[in-house]
């Protein structure tokens, strides 16, 4: 006879994307590449996160953050973008909301750039190519603080 233990429990773990209250965390994705924005969005929505906005450059990202505020929990921010780069947008978002949680996502991993971003208030820095596990871990870690 099969007991309950024979069936692996696949639903026990709460998805990363849900806050302790059970509501999805709200994410703004800022990236000029349609491919990267899609990739990040797919990773996040598969874990229950709610991608509430996407913006294709730093300036649009800043505007979108101000529109969404305070109904946004975290921003993923590309660095090399037209109109306004991600570092400038990060600084302006922090000026507007000093508690903003911004994670940089860039293919460039140069140490001084990473340092500059963290000093400007970024909570984490992910170097591409993106790995699903790495992205989810870093974001969950930043949101848990």
């Amino acid at each position, binding site marked *: 006879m099969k007991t309950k233990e024979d069936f692996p429990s696949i639903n026990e773990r709460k998805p990363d994307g849900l806050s302790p209250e059970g509501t999805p965390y709200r994410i703004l994705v800022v990236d*000029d*590449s*349609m*491919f*990267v924005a*899609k*990739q990040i969005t797919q990773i996040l929505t598969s874990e229950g996160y709610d991608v509430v906005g996407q913006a294709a450059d730093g300036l649009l990202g800043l505007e979108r953050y101000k529109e969404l505020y305070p109904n946004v929990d975290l921003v993923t921010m590309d660095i*090399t*973008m*037209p109109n306004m780069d991600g570092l400038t947008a990060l600084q302006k978002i922090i000026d507007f909301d000093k508690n903003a949680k911004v994670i940089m996502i*860039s*293919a*460039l*991993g*140069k*140490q001084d750039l990473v340092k500059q971003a963290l000093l400007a208030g970024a909570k984490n820095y992910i*170097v*591409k*190519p993106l790995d699903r596990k790495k992205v989810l871990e870093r974001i969950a870690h930043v949101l848990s603080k």
Partner: protein
Amino acid sequence: MRVEYINPFVESAFNVMKEVLQSEVKRGELYLKSTSMPVMGVAAIVGLAGGVEGRVLFDMDRPTALKIASAMNGEELTTMDDLVKATITELANMITAQAVTKLHELGFRFDLTPPAIFTGDNMEVSNQDVEALIVPMDTVHGKVEINVAIRERA
């Protein structure tokens, strides 16, 4: 062109393609081109500026571009649409950025420009006053040639 510039490109092309395509990649023999050369049909270009200047061109034929973009998106893409172009552009961006990061650690100071992509038939690329080194890469989806032209700023 100094040989120190080329190795980081070869390494990052190899590593990034292996990772994003989740399959084996083989490196072909490097060769030098100082005159113009044909472009296979889809070419993504990333510019380099700073202590050195130049550009890196990623060249492949259309079927290869479609297969690579399909693999990277996890879905079958059959037309050269905006998503395919954005995907190939991002591949070029990731490889170049990883190489620039490595060169930065070796003390070379330069940055990259946002990438651009060209598609068309009978295209060719010419380099004035700067020789280009070609790094051929064989993937399971077809051949990708990485054409690196860098010179120190006068």
